[in-house]
Structure formats: structure tokens, C-alpha cells
């Protein structure tokens, strides 16, 4: 094994606690360079092991940046992982588990991160204060798009894939009595207690291993190492069949009524794509109780040039040493304002590398850990601060100076200390993100120098360091208590702890100092940049400038400076930013307040949120019983709602080419009028209505009356919304006493059913009437044309088909092709038509039988396009095409369908008498004939009276339907035109996009067979 490249890898005997396995080498590349890591590494730990300093360039100033943290808080190590269709932008190296062959690249820096031309921007950084773009690039106005082009090019992090995602994602809906989020000390104890009480428990953690902070801890629990205690505890959890463990699973959002979204990364640690199954899985968990045990983030210390590679979080340094066996440097200077970071000095010292000194901003700390440090001979500089880091692509030294007790100014000379690593700890900030998602307002607590979660608005409690409880023993106790209580509140156990709490040796601590901004010899606006948000290059100086410009609320400052808007969402620097703002405003941080965290806690894959409901499953496709017959015939389909309906049936011509839509539709339309056509009308909505009050109810819903409709009869009706506008239409048949069948439009079926139920259930519950959707129960073949009766007669011999015995608008129960059927003699083409309804399973059989029976008449299947032409020839409207939610029956010239004298004021009636509905110049449905008969008006063409007028033109209406009518030999159109019914014979004009203006004459909307004799053919 070659370890030569891993200059910072500690040998296993130096670092026995490491969870990495140095015997398993993993090869990976970084910016094209072949490197090696070991099993258990993250990309970040492997890069640090290899001594990689610069992992990116900053967004605005192009400054070199190194790894700062070890988890979700990392602002700098943003990577493009992999290449090709499966490449993933913007992963944090600290959260990428290393696998063999992993390709990584930094996202900014050209030509390379080590030599980035954008760093020239750094020289001009003083010309780029916050919001500089609001003040510039305005003149000349027309150049903005050019300026913006370059701004956009400079922005963004990684690259989007450009091909379809090769992976798939799935979802699992889960219920839990207790959901524990975070498997650190508090979470593990909570899960243990809740599971023991008998509750159904899910415990999730974003990391590959459970244990949280304990995985990098050197503390001893019950005499064993923390990691050993974790292993035991996890083993114990595993014995519970009522507990589910989800590692590599991030609770990214806490939504209403205890709904939590959890993203499980199932294969990202194995390779770029999943070798089988889904790459990631969304768990949609509805929990009775939630325990938040999400831990805390170490706060950075904000001093000048604190962004130079080699400035790291103290706890991250400890994590790399203890957990990964990596020492990211040689000469460490520790800078702290609290006791907890002293452990980092001990860890570093134990790794065999040099602790240059501990710089503690407090003048007189006396925590017990100080003795342990003194024992190791480590120098401690009390009452001092690192005010500036020096170096370019790696820290070379630190400027250190004594500061006053408040930490607000320097009180002595600056000295320079050589070092290559500055480990920093500004205290801790509870990870209150998920609590904040619920709307709970975070509460500032000066005792912990941080925001605690606000009072719960959901069924949740926080435990451990996410509510500011930092001592390990307290975290364990609190976790256990909250777990037991959660179980009890979910109906399990008595809320009493069942497990003995382990014994822990802990140091007595000295209080931390609130040090949010380290003073410099110069004030913030002039000092070398003191970075608060590294990903977005927000400095203490930028906050000062924002305040000086009058932005005095945290939200304004955040938005003006972009503080916290990065992909790390300010997990490190947000609190510093608020405190710096508070100080600048001379206010208390509690008054300045915090901003509300929003989901996602960490960025969450679009594809996983979308899940399987894409592609063919985006929306269910509905097929009729004869669908595959249509497919075999080469039908072209159109989407109508969820249905696939044959649009037209092009035939192959003798020469082998396929008919155009125009040729096919002309042929289909002629066939219907001259012989017989067949349409699959199965998609029409069908609602079975029964009950003693069915007639009364239907009469209230339609504009016309059904009270006297006899069994065996049908009637066409229009339904209005209460605002008087047409909402749906169709035929309603009386099937028998108290029994009706209502047909709806294809797209309107679901809405109509809900509409009927609304009125019956909420307004007229006294009416006894019941509705059943039977759309899918029936398959409908409509045969239409002068030969329709002849075709039907061949397959139906149990009823009298005589035109008088089975008249227009009658329906009959009968047998068609050996199948029990309902046949309706209704017509949407104006020809003799029979709508043959049979149980859906027989639909294909009956269809094919009708085709065979019709062969001698050259029966022609026709699609929706021909149906539209044929009905337009008759002036029949299509709701949704000729109407648009603003048309009344009168507007459609259909006053004949309105029973104005009905006793009951049907739905929408009153609105027909509002002043606007009575205007004379309402748009009305008319027919249009182009003056040049071959010209076809485009549907959607706008209509003007005077084509010579200048723009804006006075538009009088528009073309709703327009076709070439092969039967008539010219084009026809329907249109709605202001006062159209009183303008018969007038010429109107349609100015088109291509520059032509077509002229047309207003005519009756009935173009064909105005007397309606054809449907009565003998």
C-alpha cells in the first residue's frame, strides 16, 4: 500500500479511536489528480489527509478557500461529483462518503482553483461592497443585459447535468409513535427509552453511522470509550422489533401536523448511480411525537482573513483527528472563548503534532480542563485573541493581541505567531432548524449564548445540545427523559426512565465568553475582511456598511448582504451576523431577533421529492376498452383530461405515405354524412342518479326541467355555476322511476360529480338522491350517419328500431352483439346516431362486431377532430372551447335550454339577471364564413370591425372553433362577437400574426341541415 500522498494520515496506533480502516485503500480523483483515501473517509477527510489546502474559490472575490467544518455546516468545500448524465453539483465534501473511483472537482476557479483569474476581483473588492450592483450597471440602460450576462457567468456553483437522470427515486409513507431525529447521545437515549416503552420508533441520522458527536469523542462512558458505548447502544436498539433505524437519512423538513420529510441516501456512498433499485428514498413520516436531537454547530470566530485555508472549526479538527485519523496540519494554534475547545488541543497533542499555543479570549478561565492542558505543557495565552490570519493559500501565521474583558477592543501590542492551522471555537449554536420549520420562534438565552428552540407548536420536544444542553451527562439524561415522555404521550409507558444512566467523567466548565466579532486594530469597515458567511463572501464590514446605509432589520441586512443565503444556509456564521448587527445598532441580540429557518435543512434532491410520479406515472393515463384497437389502426391520440382519445385515424395511402390530418378528417367527415362513422365516446362522464328526489335535484342543477321527462327519454341540459356561467353540458336520460343517467363532458366528469355532491350534501340534505360515477363501467360506441340504423339492425334484434318506435332522444335497453346494452338515440353530429353503451369489458368485442357489421357500408372510425368538425357544422358548442367561463346560455344563443319559469331557482339563475349579464353588447356565439371560402380562420384569431385602426385595436371577439368542412366544401368557424346575434351579415376582420387580415361574414352558427331533418332519416 502506498500512503505517500496521504501526508496527514495518522497511523492507526496513534489514533486508535479512528473509525477509518487504513488497510482498505480507496482511489479517487480531485480536479483530475489521482489520490487515495481509506475506508471510512469522507471526501473531505481524504482531501485533508492528502494535504489539499485549496478546495474552492469564493463566490464574489475569488479568494482561495479550504475545508472548515466536517458536516452540514461546511461552507467552502463544494464539489462537483462525477461526470456525464449522473453528475451531481454542489455536494459538500464533508458529507460525501468516499468510494472507489469517485471523481470530484471544485466548482469555482478558472483555469484552476490554485490559480484563479477571478481572484483579480479580490483586488477590486473594495469596489464591491454589499449591494454594489443596485448602485451600478444602470447606465446606459440598454447595456444591462450585457452586464448581466457576465454577472451570471460568474455566479452559480456547480454545473447542472444536461441529460436525463439515469437514477430513480422512491417514497415510503410511514407512521411512527415516536420519531427521533438525530442519533447522537440524546437521540440514542430517547429512542432506547421510547422503544422500551413499546412505542413504534423511527430514529434517523444524516450520517453513515449512528453516534453523532460521540463518534469523535474521547470521553469515557461507563469506563469504556464513547464509540464503544455507541456500538453497545446501537446493538441494543437493534434488538427492538418496534424500532427502525435510518442512517444516511436527513430530516430535511418539519411540516404541519407532525409530518416530517426524510431523505435517505441509499446508494450515494457506493457510487454515482444506484446499481439496482432507487438512489434515494423519501420517507414521508407522520409521527405522533417527534424528538428533536439534532445537536449543535460550533460557532466560528470572526477575525480578519479567517477564511484562509488552515482556519478550521476546533471541533472539526478534533473530528478529523479522532474519527478519521487525519491531522489537517502540523503547527496548530487554538483560538477559543470557551472550555470545550481545549479538548482539541489535547487531541492534537496526542496525535503527535504541535500545539503552538491556546489563545483564550477570557482573562481568568478556571475550568478543570485547563489543568489537563497544563499537564501536557501546552502554552495558554489568556485574555488574547487572534485578530488576523496571515498566508495566501494556507495559513502561515496568526496575529495575536490582548483584548479587554468584554472582548470589544485590543488592549496591547500585536504579536505574530507562526502556525499552519488555526482551530477556532466561538461556542455553540443549537441546531434549531427543524423546530423553526414548525413556526416556533427561537428564544435567545444569554446563559448559553445562543438561540434555544421556541415553545413547541407541534407535538415535539427537543433534547440535548439542540436545546442548549451541552454536558454529555445532561444530554443523556434529557434524551432519556424526553424519549420516555414522548412514548407516554403517544400512549406507551409511564414517562419514567427505565435505563440506568451511564457514568461519565466530565470536567467542570468555566462559562464561555460571548465573542461574536474579534476586534482588530482597525474598525470593521477598514480591517482586512472578517468573514461571517464564507460561501457568500459576507464580512463584518459588509454588515457595518448595510447598517450605515440604513438597513436596520436583520431581514434587510440578510437580504442586502446575502448573509445566510448559501447552500449551508449560514449554519456557521448566522448568529455572529446577528450579533454583529445588534452591536452595530446598539441593541440586544434578543431584540434584533433571528430569521426563520426554512426547509430544507440540507439541500434535497429534486428527483427524490418528485419520486416515481414522473414520466408515464406523472399522471395516470386513462384508456378506453377499444384503446388497443385504435392503436393498431394507427390512430393519433389527443390528451383530454387524463384520457387518451383518438384524434384522427390516418390511413396509409397507396404510395405508402400516411394521410395528413386534413385528408383523414375530410374522409372521416364525409363518411359520417354519406354512410356511417363510428366514434369511441366512452370517455364521456356518466353519473348514475337515483332516489325519490332525483328528478327534483336534477332539475335544480340544470337550466331546464326534468320533472316531466318520462322513462326511456333523454334531454340535453346545460349546467351553470352559481355565477351564471356555463360549466358543463350533456344529455340526461330517465332510466326509470327515480333513476337518471347524466352524461358530462369528458374533462368535466369529476368536477360535476363533486358539484352534485356539494349541493346535495350541504344545501339540500333533505333531498333523497344518490350519485355513482359509472364512467368506467360503460364502453360507448357511437355510430352516426344515414346507415347507422342498418348497421345497428345487424347486431341488435330485440327492439324495434323504427324511427318512430325508437325516436330521436329516446333510449332503449336491448342486446347488441349478444351483450346487454343501453342504446341512446342522441346525436352530436346531426346525423342519425346511436350511442351504444355496453359494460366496459365487452367494449372491444362490441366495437369490433360493429366494425364487421358496418363493413358493407364502409363504416369509418372517426376521432375527436372529425367529431368537432361535424358538430360545428351543426353549431353545437363544446364547453371549454366555445365557452371560457364567462359565457351564459344566452351568450351561446341557447336561451331555449333555460327554463326561466321553473319553480325552483336553478343554480345560476339569479346571476343571469345581473346588470352585466343583461348588457346588449355581450359576446354572442355566431358563425363565420370567410369571404374567401378556402381560407380557414385560425382558432383563437381576434376579431375587429375596422382592420385599418391602429394598435391597440378594439377587439370585438374571437374565433372559438374553425375547420374546413369537406361536406360543405368551404371553411366554417364559430366565434363569439360583441352583439354578434344582431350583426348577421356584417363583415368582420381577423388580423393575423403573419400580416394577413382575413375577412369573414357573420352568419348563423348552424351551417348544415338547419332544420335538423337528417337525424330523422327513415
Amino acid at each position: 500500500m502506498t500512503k505517500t500522498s496521504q501526508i496527514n494520515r495518522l497511523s492507526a496506533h496513534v489514533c486508535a479511536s479512528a473509525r477509518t480502516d487504513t488497510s482498505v485503500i480507496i482511489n479517487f480523483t480531485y480536479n483530475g489528480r489521482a489520490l487515495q483515501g481509506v475506508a471510512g473517509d469522507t471526501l473531505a477527510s481524504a482531501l485533508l489527509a492528502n494535504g489539499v489546502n485549496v478546495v474552492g474559490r469564493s463566490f464574489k472575490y475569488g479568494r482561495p478557500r479550504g475545508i472548515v467544518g466536517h458536516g452540514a455546516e461546511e461552507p467552502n468545500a463544494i464539489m462537483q461529483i462525477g461526470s456525464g448524465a449522473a453528475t451531481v453539483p454542489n455536494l459538500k465534501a464533508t458529507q460525501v462518503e468516499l468510494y472507489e473511483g469517485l471523481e470530484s472537482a471544485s466548482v469555482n476557479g478558472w483555469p484552476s482553483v490554485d490559480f484563479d483569474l477571478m481572484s483579480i476581483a479580490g483586488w477590486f473588492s473594495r469596489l464591491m461592497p454589499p449591494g454594489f450592483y443596485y448602485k451600478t450597471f444602470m447606465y446606459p440602460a440598454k447595456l444591462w443585459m450585457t452586464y448581466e450576462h457576465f454577472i451570471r457567468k460568474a455566479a452559480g456553483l456547480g454545473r447542472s447535468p444536461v441529460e436525463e437522470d439515469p437514477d430513480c427515486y422512491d417514497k415510503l409513507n410511514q407512521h411512527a409513535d415516536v420519531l427521533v431525529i438525530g442519533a447522537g447521545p440524546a437521540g440514542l437515549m430517547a429512542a432506547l427509552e421510547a422503544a422500551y416503552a413499546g412505542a413504534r420508533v423511527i430514529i434517523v441520522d444524516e450520517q453513515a453511522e449512528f453516534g453523532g458527536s460521540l463518534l469523535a469523542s474521547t470521553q469515557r462512558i461507563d469506563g469504556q470509550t464513547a464509540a464503544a458505548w455507541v456500538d453497545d447502544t446501537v446493538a441494543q436498539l437493534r434488538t427492538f422489533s418496534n424500532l427502525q433505524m435510518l442512517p444516511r437519512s436527513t430530516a430535511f423538513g418539519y411540516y404541519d401536523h407532525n409530518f416530517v420529510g426524510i431523505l435517505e441516501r441509499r446508494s450515494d456512498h457506493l457510487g454515482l448511480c444506484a446499481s439496482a433499485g432507487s438512489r434515494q428514498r423519501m420517507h414521508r413520516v407522520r409521527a405522533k411525537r417527534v424528538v428533536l436531537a439534532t445537536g449543535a454547530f460550533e460557532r466560528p470566530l470572526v477575525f480578519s482573513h479567517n477564511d484562509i485555508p488552515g482556519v478550521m472549526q476546533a471541533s472539526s479538527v478534533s473530528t478529523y483527528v479522532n474519527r478519521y485519523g487525519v491531522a489537517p496540519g502540523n503547527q496548530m494554534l487554538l483560538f477559543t472563548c470557551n472550555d470545550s475547545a481545549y479538548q482539541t488541543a489535547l487531541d492534537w497533542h496526542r496525535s503527535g503534532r504541535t500545539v503552538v499555543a491556546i489563545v483564550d479570549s477570557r482573562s481568568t478561565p478556571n475550568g478543570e480542563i485547563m489543568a489537563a492542558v497544563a499537564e501536557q505543557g501546552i502554552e495558554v495565552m489568556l485574555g488574547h485573541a487572534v485578530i488576523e490570519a496571515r498566508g495566501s493559500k494556507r495559513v502561515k501565521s496568526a496575529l495575536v493581541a490582548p483584548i479587554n474583558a468584554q472582548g470589544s477592543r485590543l488592549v496591547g501590542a500585536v504579536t505574530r505567531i507562526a502556525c499552519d492551522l488555526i482551530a477556532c471555537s466561538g461556542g455553540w449554536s443549537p441546531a434549531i432548524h427543524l423546530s423553526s420549520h414548525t413556526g416556533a420562534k427561537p428564544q435567545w438565552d444569554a446563559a448559553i449564548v445562543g438561540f434555544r428552540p421556541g415553545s413547541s407548536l407541534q407535538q415535539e420536544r427537543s433534547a440535548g445540545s439542540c436545546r442548549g444542553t451541552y454536558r454529555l451527562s445532561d444530554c443523556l439524561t434529557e434524551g432519556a427523559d424526553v424519549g420516555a415522555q414522548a412514548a407516554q404521550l403517544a400512549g406507551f409507558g409511564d414517562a419514567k426512565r427505565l435505563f440506568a444512566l451511564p457514568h461519565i467523567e466530565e470536567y467542570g466548565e468555566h462559562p464561555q465568553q460571548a465573542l461574536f466579532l474579534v476586534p482588530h486594530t482597525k474598525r470593521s469597515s477598514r480591517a482586512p475582511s472578517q468573514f461571517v458567511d464564507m460561501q457568500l463572501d459576507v464580512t463584518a464590514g459588509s454588515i457595518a456598511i448595510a447598517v450605515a446605509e440604513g438597513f436596520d432589520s436583520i431581514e434587510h441586512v440578510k437580504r442586502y448582504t446575502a448573509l445566510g443565503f448559501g447552500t449551508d444556509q449560514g449554519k456557521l456564521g448566522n448568529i455572529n451576523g446577528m450579533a454583529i448587527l445588534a452591536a452595530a445598532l446598539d441593541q440586544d441580540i434578543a431584540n434584533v431577533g433571528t430569521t426563520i429557518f426554512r426547509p430544507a435543512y440540507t439541500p434535497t434532491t429534486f428527483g427524490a421529492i418528485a419520486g416515481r410520479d414522473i414520466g408515464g406515472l406523472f399522471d395516470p393515463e386513462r384508456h378506453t376498452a377499444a384503446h388497443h384497437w385504435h392503436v393498431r389502426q394507427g390512430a393519433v391520440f389527443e390528451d383530454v383530461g387524463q384520457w387518451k382519445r383518438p384524434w384522427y385515424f390516418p390511413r396509409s395511402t397507396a404510395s405508402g405515405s400516411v394521410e395528413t390530418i386534413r385528408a383523414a378528417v375530410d374522409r372521416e367527415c364525409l363518411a359520417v354524412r354519406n354512410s356511417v362513422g363510428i366514434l369511441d365516446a366512452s370517455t364521456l362522464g356518466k353519473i348514475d342518479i337515483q332516489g325519490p328526489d332525483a328528478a327534483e335535484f336534477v332539475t335544480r342543477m340544470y337550466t331546464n326541467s326534468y320533472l316531466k321527462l318520462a322513462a326511456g327519454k333523454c334531454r340535453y341540459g346545460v349546467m351553470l355555476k352559481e355565477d351564471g356561467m356555463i360549466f358543463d353540458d350533456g344529455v340526461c336520460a330517465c332510466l326509470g322511476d327515480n333513476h337518471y343517467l347524466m352524461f358530462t363532458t369528458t374533462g368535466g366528469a369529476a368536477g360535476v360529480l363533486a358539484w352534485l355532491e356539494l349541493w346535495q350534501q350541504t344545501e339540500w340534505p333533505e333531498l333523497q338522491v344518490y350519485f355513482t360515477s359509472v364512467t368506467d363501467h360503460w364502453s360507448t360506441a357511437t355510430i352516426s350517419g344515414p346507415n347507422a340504423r342498418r348497421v345497428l339492425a345487424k347486431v341488435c334484434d330485440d327492439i324495434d328500431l323504427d324511427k318512430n318506435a325508437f325516436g330521436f332522444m329516446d333510449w332503449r335497453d336491448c342486446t347488441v352483439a349478444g351483450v346487454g346494452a343501453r342504446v341512446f338515440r342522441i346525436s352530436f353530429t346531426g346525423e342519425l346516431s346511436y350511442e351504444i353503451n355496453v359494460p366496459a369489458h365487452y367494449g372491444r368485442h362490441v366495437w369490433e362486431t360493429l366494425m364487421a357489421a358496418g363493413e358493407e357500408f364502409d363504416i369509418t372510425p372517426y376521432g375527436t377532430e372529425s367529431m368537432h368538425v361535424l358538430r360545428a357544422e351543426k353549431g353545437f358548442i363544446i364547453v371549454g372551447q366555445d365557452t371560457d367561463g364567462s359565457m351564459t346560455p344566452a351568450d351561446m344563443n341557447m336561451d331555449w335550454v333555460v327554463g326561466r319559469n321553473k319553480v325552483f331557482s336553478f343554480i345560476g339563475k339569479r346571476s343571469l339577471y345581473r346588470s352585466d349579464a343583461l348588457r346588449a353588447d355581450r359576446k354572442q356565439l355566431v358563425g363565420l364564413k370567410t369571404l374567401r371560402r378556402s381560407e380557414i380562420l385560425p382558432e383563437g384569431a381576434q376579431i375587429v370591425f375596422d382592420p385599418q385602426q391602429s394598435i391597440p385595436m378594439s377587439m370585438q371577439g374571437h374565433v372559438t372553433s374553425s375547420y374546413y368542412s369537406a361536406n360543405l366544401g368551404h371553411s366554417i368557424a364559430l366565434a363569439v362577437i360583441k352583439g354578434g346575434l344582431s350583426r348577421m351579415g356584417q363583415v368582420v376582420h381577423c388580423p393575423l400574426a403573419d400580416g394577413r387580415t382575413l375577412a369573414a361574414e357573420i352568419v348563423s352558427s348552424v351551417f348544415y341541415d338547419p332544420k335538423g331533418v337528417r337525424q330523422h332519416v327513415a
Partner: protein
Amino acid sequence: MLLIHCPHCREDREEEEFSYGGEAHIVRPLAPESLTDEAWGDYLFFRKNPRGIHHEMWYHGTGCRRYFYATRNTLTYAILETYCVGEKPLVSASIVSTAL
């Protein structure tokens, strides 16, 4: 995403099974023709839209297909009760404000 108790099914079900039906307890005028345009317009379009306690209709479209009422806080989204058509709410804005 809301968790809604259907008083007909007597189960807590996901919001996705339901659709919202607007303000509850709006009674259709018995004699619409006798109303002024203003009174009719008020019935058609004007709503209480409170920030707080709201009585509203829901429809269990992919469940029992029945409408029912809910008393919900439009600020916190907490559902305080659900009840059947014909029943009266137990919780009202005035009760909640006195409780506070």
C-alpha cells in the same frame, strides 16, 4: 401537509385525500330573485377570510366522498374540530379568544 379527521370515516387521513370547499355555513338564499345585485354578489363572492378561527368545508374526495366541516386556525393550521353537515361547531372565534 394537514392531517384531517373525517367525521364520517372517523379516521385521520392525509390532506391529499381531501379538497377544500371554502367557507362553511353560507346558506343559499331561498328566494334569489328577490335579492338585489349587491345582496346576490355578497352571497356569491364575499367571504369572511379571517386570520384565525375559520369554519370551512372539506370534501373527502378519495375517501367517503362526503362533505364535512372543520374549525381550523388559518394562522397555525391547527384543526380544532371536524363535524358533520347539520351539526354546529363547538369551537368559535369568540370561545377561542376568551380562552386566551
